[in-house]
């Protein structure tokens, strides 16, 4: 059974994928993960997840233009320039 190992380096830091291991059950998976990823105190916590339990999301359909949700959806350069020029030209 393949287990994916995620580790956190410091309290509060995100868990990052570190590698995987092949272990017959959770007990062995824990023992081996402790040896591989924790024996020098390099991790404060590990997550062991059976590979089959991971739901993979990789397709990002973009049928609709969703740019308004992101910073690159707003191109203000030209408008800002125009606004500054108008302001500099004096009161309207």
């Amino acid at each position, binding site marked *: 059974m393949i287990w994916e190992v995620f580790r956190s380096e410091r309290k509060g830091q995100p868990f990052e994928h570190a*590698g*995987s291991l092949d272990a*017959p059950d959770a007990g062995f998976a824990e023992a081996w993960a402790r040896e*591989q990823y924790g024996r020098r105190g390099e991790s404060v916590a590990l997550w062991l997840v059976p590979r089959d339990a991971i739901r993979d999301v990789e397709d990002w359909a973009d049928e609709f233009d969703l740019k308004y949700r992101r910073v*690159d959806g707003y191109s203000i350069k030209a408008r800002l320039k125009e606004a500054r020029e108008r302001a500099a030209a004096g009161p309207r």
Partner: protein
Amino acid sequence: MAAAEVPQDEQGFLEYVQEGGQVEATDRLPDEYRAKLVKFVEMHANSELMGVLPEREWILRAPTLQRKLALTAKVQDEVGHAQLIYRVVEDLGKPRAQCLDDLVAGRSKFHNVFHYPTRTWGDVGVIAWLVDAAAIISQKALLKCSYAPYARIMKKICWEESFHILHGRDVILAMVTGTPEQFELVQEALDRWWPPLMQFHGNPIPRDEDPMWTWRIKSQGNEEARQQFLEGYVPQIWELGLTVPDPKLRRRDDGVWEYTEPDWEELRSVVTGHGPMTDERLAFRRRFIEQESWVREALVA
């Protein structure tokens, strides 16, 4: 923003990895890429597994308890690396049992330096310092490997190798500051290890002709790696008063190191299974795989 798609066709894939793109185990990989990757990664795993044997021979003969513990820890690290790397190979489609079968039957390769004997405690220092230094140069270049699962485990491996180099340097420093006999042990070991060290990064094939570079499995060419090794370590060897056994070795004004052409025929012969310790070490590995099979059987029962 759609995630960068891994191109499905071989040419597109090639361009994608050459632009620094990385792929995962779940992506569709061209057959040629997968085959090259398995060969490369499997050899790396084999090297970690076989690489512990020269040092293991010295655990029982280590000069102090501290050295014995450090050497044991190092052996554990390297076997751990082998386990991680074989996992990568398994995900690419070749089971670990088959890798081990091929290894002990002499059908697959491991690094040249692990085919040589470790005659004295001086060898242990030279291996831990300079062989590991040469290896870490290759391994650091794999942090950017186009195959991301391999690149990720390389972070942990490089981190552990950095202890090993320090451990080796400490062993060497203890000996060069010791008795004249101790200094001589280091010099004698260096004399024997220098030729294999110079062969370690492979023949100076231009990187554009190296398929491992083409697919961005490696991120540097062989000669680049060797130059990096010379630049980093020759001054460190010299400052200890040791002599590098190559009269032609010198650093040119433009920073390029010149050296006597390594014996490429010896390299070819050694890695194809004709090294001085090849048979003995493979026989040892074979014996242990058989002897410990009950452990594996008990685990999966």
